[in-house]
């Protein structure tokens, strides 16, 4: 059954044509090295293999997936056989939702900024404290070595600092910009990852099954266990 439109966010599904005459057992024997990785449990029932992963290794070719099903089926009226794969990825779903999380952080930042916006009394108090501090402040004297080497002279801080306004949050301290930027990063990462991982897993399986002419026998072995 085709995954629903929503489920395609986190489900990768496809069909790979199998070589003429290749049985289900031969197919799974070729794919088994890909499933024999740390944290992977798999079970074969006739022409179906189900696998489940727990804490897969970073270099595991199927590390993105949490569980999946591989089934050898007859392909329509032509009589050929196909490998039908359907794999579920929690990390893809989380990446899809991550922009919402970071947008939430951005709004939380804005909210906290508004709650902490200084009142007129706060600003007056801060100005008095600043004036008292400034009496103790001196502009640092530049060391003669630094002067000789041409380094810029130090200056007192705060001369360009914008004066706070009552009721206005500190726009730098409570800036939502980083959260917006990360929301964008994860949106882009999701689109790229959804395309890339679907392509990679298809290509890996095609090479193991011998249906991708680009794969050599050494590559097949290397692809099976990518360490």
């Amino acid at each position, binding site marked *: 059954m085709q995954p629903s439109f929503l489920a395609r966010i986190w489900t990768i599904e496809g069909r790979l044509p199998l070589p003429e005459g290749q049985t289900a057992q031969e197919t799974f024997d070729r794919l088994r090295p890909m499933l024999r990785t*740390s*944290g992977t449990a798999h079970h074969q029932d006739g022409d179906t293999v189900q696998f489940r992963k727990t*804490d*897969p*290794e*970073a*270099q595991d070719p199927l*590390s*993105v997936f949490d569980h999946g099903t591989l089934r050898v089926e007859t392909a329509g009226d032509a009589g050929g056989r196909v490998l039908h794969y359907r794999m579920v990825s929690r*990390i893809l779903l*989380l*990446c899809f939702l*991550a922009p919402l999380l*970071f947008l939430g*952080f*951005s709004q*939380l*930042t804005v909210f*906290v900024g508004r709650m902490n916006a200084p009142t007129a009394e706060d600003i007056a108090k801060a100005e008095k404290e600043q004036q008292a*501090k400034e009496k*103790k*402040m*001196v*502009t*640092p*004297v530049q*060391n003669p*070595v*630094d002067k000789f*080497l*041409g*380094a*810029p002279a*130090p*200056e*007192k*801080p*705060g001369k360009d*600092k914008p004066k706070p306004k009552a009721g206005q949050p*500190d726009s*730098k*301290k*409570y800036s939502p910009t*980083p*959260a917006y930027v*990360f929301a964008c*990063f*994860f949106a882009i*990462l999701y689109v*790229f*990852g959804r395309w*890339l*991982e679907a392509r990679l897993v298809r290509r890996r399986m095609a090479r193991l099954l011998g249906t991708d002419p680009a794969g050599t026998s050494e590559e097949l072995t290397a692809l099976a266990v990518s*360490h």
Partner: protein
Amino acid sequence: MQGVRVGKRMIGTQAPVTIGWENVPRVEGGPVKRAFFSWFQPTVLFALILFWYYAPNSIAKASTAIGIGIGFRVLLLTLEFFFPKHQSWMITWKEFTVDLFYVGLGYTILRLVDTFIGDDVMVGAIQGAFHWEKFAWFTGLPILLQAFIISFIFDFGQYWMHRGMHNWYPLWLPHSVHHYITQLNVHKGAVGNPVELFLIGLGIGGFFDFVPRAFLLAGAIGMSISIYQHINVRFDSPRWWRFLFNTTGHHSLHHSQDFEATRSNYSNTYIFIDRIFGTCLDGEAELLGMEGGRRMSIREQMTFPFTEGWKSIKERLARPASIDAVPAE
């Protein structure tokens, strides 16, 4: 495994490690490539020192430092994609995404929490202190010396905090999850429990643009040395660099699956601090992590310190108090 004797310790009895610079592989390739990976690190360090030394006051700000940091990380990500040190540490989509999640937490929600737990006070004190008369003896020193002193004091504190994290259980709990990483990549430094980040982090973001120049220099020196701790690139660092500064090799030993090797190389920037206190190991390791290399999920990274802490408390409370038996008369 037999292991290698280093001082009083046997290193590499539980997992393979390489001890001694003479045993560490060199960069392979033509003369240009070898020269690039030999001199990249010192060149970047000196370029950044020159930049911050001569930058006009109008651009000598935290925002500039953050921009440079981001740009530099992008460059390093590119380097590690095209010139990986170990194939077993190759960056994948999943690893990059998860790492970036932790980085994103640091730039957003953790930064917000920091403003409530005293970051403000610390930042204000630092900004103010540089203009107090009683610190004039320090601020009158050559600025490079000020920068070195600041970065050394910071790294000295980091060394002892990190060493404490590996020796005292309550500090080990939040730090332990960081040691479940199984490979080193540019953003792996951010992977860990937020509690640990509160313990070690005074974020530069808290300065909101005015930073004393000496601090900017100290930050640049720190970044251009310590950033190589978590990276999948092989550098043929000059001998003096490896003697003074922390390298990828040093930090990979600290992250290795060999327990004794992890009790080494605690500093962030100046490996000579480890040399002074006898905790330095020169070399490298490829097999990293804990529990035989089990990769920890984000969920477990967030909860492990608390669940393990709770388990330990229950065990401690369940243990009967020892009673000195007195024979009945």
